[in-house]
């Protein structure tokens, strides 16, 4: 079987043209006089359908999907293949019935013409977003805005499936009992964090606690052979001394979920000439949750470090462990031979609040009414529930709903629960209700497109820009019924973009669009060792800060391709060879000289290079594919099976630079078809090693970063690549970014009928000097964002 690659060569070109919104000037012939039902379909039936139908899908191809003109666009990728196969006479195969040359040409010309002359106005359809649940990110942000605390519980929810590159595509998410269990637990957790009962305290005598050694290495300690006969720990008259990396452990029943303080009275002592003193770790159920350094003023002194951790109600194993042995083998006095920690007493206090004022604000936000001489408990409850449910359900609530919810309040009150406990139970029901957990849009029974309600529009807007619930002002405008008015809609959009919550756009959209998910997965090899979480978080943060800057300062979207500034912190500045900056926070730095040619824009960001490279090598083909797919929206077709391994360095010969090893991509015609378009881009990026650092050599030889693009133009290095993209591919980039952000906003995959709105948005961006706000406002004002249309059900299982 021929490699799949040769089917698809024209695909890149065709899609590019479709994307640019230009019609083909050269074939400006009028439409060939053919008709789908009378000519095209019978042609397919006569020459193709025998092997390519719904039952018999030779090569995986089923041509029954082409039922009418609309289906030509809906399945345009497949149609491209059909045209290619027919026009190159690859199909029908030699031993099958062949059409005569004239009809073959007529049909393929007509199909080609139809594809090239796509008229969006004939296919206006705003699409349909089915009801679906909040994603983990949306849940976290919504709890943050609704309640104000406890949103970290979202980390325990199952991860969401990503499709079309994003995890908020509604169609694919499922709801399972795993989710429901977690929602029940999360609701309880969140409410426990709001209603904080008076703190209790418990004392523990370290001398009576069990000692547990920690085996093996701990953190940065050098491996040390512990001298035989030397103590690991010792219980004296007033302290439990720790010498080795181990600690005391006890189990405790925590009555209430919340923040707890662990006050440890102790003294510390450093071994003679030891480099570092000891530190103390707090472990909750074998997980490190807090730690502190221990000042080493010697025995007889007292330190009182306080470690804090959020603990869930229930019984847990607590361990206070020493770290940092620090052995001085030459010390004569055995007491000075090791770092020591003398534990004097342990007190556990909680639940406590970090910030009294904030905790009160959170509680008052919830308890908008309290029972008193003028207000009966149930009436207070009614006000509280009406307020909370209204916000949680993100739409007006009716009296009936509130009364039903108050059933919980009654139930709890009748069995003797306190007012607060009764309220907690009632609000728990709100947080597990589908009205909270789902994005719901109501259907109207009509076949025409219809506008979503202002409340639904408010939700679409806030989950697009904030990945969270609408705020009070947005709900107010929706309640007025004016949100859909163009000037109001735009004003609200701009207001929301200015709000700090719009950082969610950068945080949620950008990493998913750029495909950075693998940043946090397992191992990589390389000089800059992002083997720890912190460094990889930094890499991600660069991307988010940059994108957020574009949004907030309304920069041109083209700065994603090339910018004269970058966002770095201390570690990243060092990694990029930029002038030193201090501190972990990210800040904007201007790029000058060489740096301006090397960094700036996504192609200079380490996160991108790390995500696409191999553990040991860069990956020019992968990077080329990434540019074509992620930046331009024109992915190359997949490789055929049986792709052999690259030739490795021979055992005796010199190690070859990667580029030389990829030479087969050029010499083998089976490979060259696609790789001629992919590899040159990757070669231009070879200056970035597999962790994004700048290099000028590979395997001891100077890098050759030139590549010849299809059409003859040569590009040398990333700077020329950026300029090439900016000048030759700007429209394509604009179109692609619009598609991606629109997918994100609509929370569904795009269909052929979205092409019209995409082109309109791209045009409006073009008219506004490519400003980011034009993209965002363009999406908000678009047809699919404000309207919806019920799907026409054609089959029981999947809708078309």
């Amino acid at each position: 079987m021929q490699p799949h690659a040769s089917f698809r060569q024209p695909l890149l070109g065709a899609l590019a043209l479709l994307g640019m919104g230009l019609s083909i000037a050269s074939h400006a012939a009028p439409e060939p006089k053919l008709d789908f039902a009378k000519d095209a379909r019978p042609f397919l039936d006569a020459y193709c359908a025998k092997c390519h139908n719904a039952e018999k899908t030779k090569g995986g191809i089923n041509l029954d999907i082409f039922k009418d003109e609309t289906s030509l666009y809906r399945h345009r990728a497949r149609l491209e293949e059909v045209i290619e196969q027919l026009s190159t006479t690859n199909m029908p195969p030699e031993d099958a019935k062949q059409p005569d040359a004239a009809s073959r040409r007529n049909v393929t010309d007509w199909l080609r013409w139809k594809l090239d002359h796509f008229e969006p106005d004939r296919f206006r359809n705003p699409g349909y977003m089915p009801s679906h649940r909040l994603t983990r990110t949306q849940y976290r942000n919504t709890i943050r805005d609704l309640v104000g605390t406890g949103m970290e519980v979202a980390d325990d929810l199952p991860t969401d499936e990503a499709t079309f590159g994003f995890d908020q595509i509604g169609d694919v998410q499922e709801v399972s009992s795993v989710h429901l269990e977690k929602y029940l637990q999360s609701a309880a957790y969140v409410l426990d964090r709001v209603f904080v009962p008076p703190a209790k305290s418990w004392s523990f005598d370290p001398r009576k606690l069990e000692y547990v050694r920690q085996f093996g290495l701990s953190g940065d300690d050098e491996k040390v052979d512990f001298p035989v006969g030397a103590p690991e720990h010792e219980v004296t008259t007033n302290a439990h001394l720790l010498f080795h990396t181990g600690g005391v452990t006890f189990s405790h029943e925590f009555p209430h979920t919340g923040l707890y303080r662990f006050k440890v009275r102790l003294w510390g002592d450093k071994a003679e000439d030891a480099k570092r003193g000891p530190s103390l770790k707090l472990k909750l159920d074998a997980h490190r949750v807090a730690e502190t350094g221990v000042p080493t003023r010697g025995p007889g002194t007292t330190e009182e470090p306080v470690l804090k951790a959020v603990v869930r109600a229930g019984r847990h194993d607590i361990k206070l462990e020493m770290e940092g042995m620090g052995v001085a083998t030459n010390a004569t006095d055995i007491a000075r031979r090791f770092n020591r920690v003398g534990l004097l007493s342990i007190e556990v206090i909680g639940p406590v609040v970090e910030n009294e004022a904030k905790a009160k604000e959170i509680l008052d936000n919830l308890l908008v009414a309290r029972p008193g001489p003028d207000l009966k408990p149930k009436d207070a409850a009614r006000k509280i529930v009406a307020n909370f449910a209204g916000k949680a359900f993100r739409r007006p609530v009716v009296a009936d709903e509130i009364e039903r919810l108050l059933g919980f309040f009654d139930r709890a009150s009748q069995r003797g629960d306190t007012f607060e406990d009764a309220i907690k139970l009632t609000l728990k029901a709100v947080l597990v209700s589908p009205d909270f957990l789902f994005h719901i849009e109501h259907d109207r029974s009509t076949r025409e497109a219809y506008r979503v309600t202002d409340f639904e529009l408010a939700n679409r807007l806030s989950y697009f820009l904030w990945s969270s619930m609408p705020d009070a002002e947005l709900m107010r405008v929706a309640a007025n019924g004016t949100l859909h008015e163009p000037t109001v809609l735009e004003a609200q959009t701009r207001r929301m973009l200015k709000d700090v919550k719009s950082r969610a756009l950068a945080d949620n959209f950008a990493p998913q669009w750029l495909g950075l998910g693998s940043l946090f997965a397992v191992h990589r090899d390389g000089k800059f060792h992002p083997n720890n979480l912190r460094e990889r978080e930094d890499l991600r943060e660069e991307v988010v800060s940059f994108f957020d800057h574009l949004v907030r300062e309304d920069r041109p979207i083209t700065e994603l391709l090339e910018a004269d500034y970058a966002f770095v912190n201390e570690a990243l500045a060092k990694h990029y060879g930029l002038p030193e900056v201090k501190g972990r926070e990210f800040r904007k730095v201007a790029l000058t000289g060489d740096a301006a040619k090397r960094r700036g824009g996504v192609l200079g960001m380490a996160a991108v290079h790390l995500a696409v490279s191999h553990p040991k090598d860069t990956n020019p083909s992968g990077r080329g594919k990434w540019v074509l797919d992620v930046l331009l929206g024109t992915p190359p077709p997949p490789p055929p099976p049986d792709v052999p391994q690259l030739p490795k360095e021979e055992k005796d010969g010199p190690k070859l630079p990667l580029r030389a090893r990829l030479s087969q991509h050029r010499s083998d015609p089976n490979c060259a078809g696609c790789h001629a378009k992919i590899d040159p881009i990757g070669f231009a990026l070879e200056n970035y090693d597999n962790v994004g650092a700048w290099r000028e050599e590979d395997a001891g030889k100077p890098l050759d970063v030139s590549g010849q693009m299809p059409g003859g133009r040569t590009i040398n290095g990333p700077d020329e690549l950026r300029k090439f993209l900016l000048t030759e591919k700007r429209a394509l980039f604009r179109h692609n970014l619009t598609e991606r952000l629109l997918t994100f906003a609509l929370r569904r995959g795009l269909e052929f009928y979205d092409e019209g709105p995409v082109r309109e948005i791209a045009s409006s961006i073009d008219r506004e000097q490519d400003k980011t706000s034009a993209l965002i406002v363009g999406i908000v004002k678009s047809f699919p964002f404000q309207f919806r249309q019920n799907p026409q059900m054609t089959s029981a299982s999947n809708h078309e």
Partner: protein
Amino acid sequence: MNKPWQLSRRTFLRGSGAILALPLLDVMSPVSKAAAKALPPTRLGVILCPNGVRPSTWFPKEEGALTVLPEALKPLESVKKELLVFSGLSNDLCKEAPHHRAIAGFLTGASPKEGSPYVGISADQFAARRIGQFTRLPSLELGLPETLQQQGSCDGFSCVYTRNIAWNSATTPVPKEINPRNAFDRLFRHLVNKAEPGKDELSLATQTEDDRSVLDHVLQDAKRLRGQVSNADKHKLDQYFEAVRDVEKRINRIIVAEAHRGSWKPTIPTNLVAPQTPQTIQEHIRAMLDLMALAFQTDNTRVASMMFGYGASWNVYPESGLKEQHHSISHYPDAPGKGDIYTALNRYHASCFGYLVEKMRSIPEGDGTLLDNSMLLFGSELGQGGSHIVHNLPVLLAGGAGGTLKTGRHIKSVPHTPMANLLVEVLNRMQVGDDVKRFGNSTGGINGLA
């Protein structure tokens, strides 16, 4: 030790008037028969290691008794007698675009469709639907973090096909837990939080009752919403509905499970400690396999699965001594010298599987071991990584399935025998009710396993 679930039934049935419908127990069902004889139930664990194997070093040369193990399976030497190695099995429905579809076809014996996800129910979920009601969790799905990132769609197919082997309906994959701590909590939180006698029994009962009434309430909300949305929309709300019902059942399952076990009781270790955050992938694998064994041992579930990575996984396994990523290694040819790295990785994965087999063999149960009462299916969705073929899949079973498997052999099937035929044999050993005659694209069973 106090068992909080041994409260009176009345405590659970009291409440807002909702009548609890307990499943009618067929006294003559296989499960009841087994329970009557105090036999431990059969467990099914599936471990999927993606990207195929190097065939020449994985499959035994001879049929029949396993004597000399091939290079890649040598780590299983000590458990050789417990194994059944298969060859000739195929996943032919996934012949086209296998790297996007074969994973979804592995346990379903179905052909994943283009567009919106649609494949079929997987064998493990088929079993879970029938016997899952007798355990706290109907099934357990585990996984590892994945290095590979997919952009957009996977060549017209939903990328969800490469990420899940467990499907509890044609359209719904079952989410995997990749955090060992979370998996542990799901399984054992109720045991680790030991309730004090007396006072806390009551509060646990109250909390459970409250949860049930919350679930009743939201079920009403879901019904109302369902009435207001179109047919297309009902799907998600239906899932919600099912999920709520499922959790409700689970709360009551504890009583049912106790009743059903009859005189057989699982052993509950007294020193359950939550797993630490894994620092390496090997630690991660072992933590998950430990949990699987523990879940089986304590009869918290009888159906479990684990994936080492997605289809075309890019994970790296430094403890194998290899630094390249999995997918890249799987493209080395099956040639002397050049293919050795692929063999080395296959060996490593086999040793990971061996870890689980040894573990379960070391847990006594009934008259034998936990392994004797289990079936552990270890395999890959591709016959060979580089060529993406889906015939001659590397699959092996470990465990005696309660004495219904005669192990220690290589079973050669006629080439292109559907993998689903093996699934039929597996399901018929899970006490799922009537004999399973067909599953997915099966054409029968596999002879000579017993």
